[in-house]
């Protein structure tokens, strides 16, 4: 199956996965937990970590872009794979499948790295937690974590697909990575400038910012910014990205 081959090619850059995993794991030890009572519960730690602004808006997306930006140029330039595909559109379908698998794996990896970090730091693994420090109503930690990881997966899939379109369009992973940097900085800057914070929900990476779209006590929720909004936004971005890739890949010459 083409998918298996593409996955193998995707993950064969072992050094890149090491850098990404190592960087993320290292950063988990520097999570700012002063905003809440210092958590002894591992799930509180994970939620706190995966909702830190600089991590969620800049570091995590950038590390993901680093993994995917050269995937399409590499495959298209690989004569031995390309020549065996029946059509470019079929190849596009497999790109998207592999990309979704990558977004899923990366999001779960973030969760696992925080889990390991919390465990190493001696935190308790308990399914009950003091949700009152985060939320106005009682919340099950698994429900919250599932929503959080789902946002990560959906956003990385949609924004990642658009970034892959950029790499296909320009056949240049540096330009695609630069575009990814721009997206991250855009969301972060809009968040930081209070008067335009209402525009935050329109920025791509903001869709991962769980505490901006779910009622909580930790961070200011942006008006009319909800999980539903975020999922619809991501689906629109994904749809547009796929259409653009379809239009472009048919006639792509390289």
């Amino acid at each position, binding site marked *: 199956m083409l998918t*298996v081959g593409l996955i193998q090619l995707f993950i064969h850059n072992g050094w890149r996965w090491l850098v990404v995993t190592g960087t993320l794991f290292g950063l988990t030890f520097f999570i700012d937990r002063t905003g809440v009572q210092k958590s002894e519960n591992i799930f509180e730690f994970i939620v706190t970590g995966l909702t830190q602004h600089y991590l969620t808006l800049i570091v995590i997306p950038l590390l993901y872009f680093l993994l995917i930006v050269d995937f399409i140029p590499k495959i298209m*330039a690989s004569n031995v794979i390309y*020549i*065996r595909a029946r*059509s470019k559109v079929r190849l596009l379908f497999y790109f998207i499948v592999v990309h979704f698998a990558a977004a899923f794996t990366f999001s779960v990896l973030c969760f696992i790295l925080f889990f390991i970090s919390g465990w190493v730091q001696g935190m308790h693994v308990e399914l009950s937690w003091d949700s009152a420090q985060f939320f106005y109503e009682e919340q099950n930690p698994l429900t919250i974590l599932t929503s959080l990881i789902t946002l990560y997966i959906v956003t990385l899939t949609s924004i990642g697909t658009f970034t892959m379109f950029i790499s296909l369009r320009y056949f240049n992973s540096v330009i695609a990575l630069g575009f990814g940097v721009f997206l991250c900085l855009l969301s972060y800057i809009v968040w930081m400038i209070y008067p335009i914070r209402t525009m935050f929900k329109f920025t791509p990476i903001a869709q991962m910012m769980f505490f901006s779209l779910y009622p909580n006590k930790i961070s200011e929720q942006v008006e009319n910014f909800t999980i539903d909004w975020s999922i619809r936004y991501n689906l629109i971005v994904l749809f547009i990205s796929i259409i653009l890739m379809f239009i472009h890949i*048919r006639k792509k010459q390289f």
Partner: protein
Amino acid sequence: MEKQRLIQFKGVKKKLGKTMILDGINFSVSAGEVVGITGANGSGKTTILRQICGFLYPDQGEVIVSNEIVEPGLVGKIPAGIGALIETPTFLPQFTGFQNLALLAGIQEKIGKETIKKSLKMVGLEPMDKKKVRKYSQGMLQRLGIAQAIMEEPKILLLDEPTNGLDKDGVDLFRQILEKQINDHVAIILVSHIEEEISRFCDKVYLLKDGKLELIQKQKQREWIILVRTVEELEQLSYVLTDFRIIKRVGGFATGQCKGEWESKQELLAFLMSYHIIPEKIMMEEEVVLC
């Protein structure tokens, strides 16, 4: 009976950047035919191969592969039935040669493990070798590249610099592979910037220069080994035959080698006798085992 033309270029023009790389190219390759294209680096030889594979489309004219015009269409169809070795193939370095070919074979699911092993043996690689591709020499990579090109029994075979990195054994194996492909009625294009490296295998050779294609060899040039009794006869041969060179003695006889379009030994013998040269023996290169 006219053989089916599997590749056709009709008035093809292609610009890359500001340079007109191909300026009205016309040629065809039939089933079982071997066509060579030679030319300087950057002359556009690889561009021709890339157009056949659907990596590039002509600005003008048509490229027809297996009776279908190569064009984007609705789904960006990629011409089927092509085996190609164009530039450096990308293999996964952390896997063995067999594992790499198995992954590639899994894309179309046309062949099984036994066929992959057979292809590796054909190019002189051991199928069960545990060595990872990252440790392969240039010659081994080239052999693996040829193996991936032929393993799925393509109708069209495109080979760019096919003997690059191959030793004499490798070149001999390559000749055997080509003969099998010709017998299987595969249309073959060989591309090299060194004409001598491919001309002996080709029915026709074109020179690509300034965007134009010029036929420089109309018939297959075979390699002949001529044995004579005396050094004086060797000297005579060097005057009469182009590309003649003296080689190691065979069976105690002074021996020389040349290329030519003679169809048979009798034809070459008749040619030499017209110059009053009567050789001891005439052989084709493949028949000789040099000790």
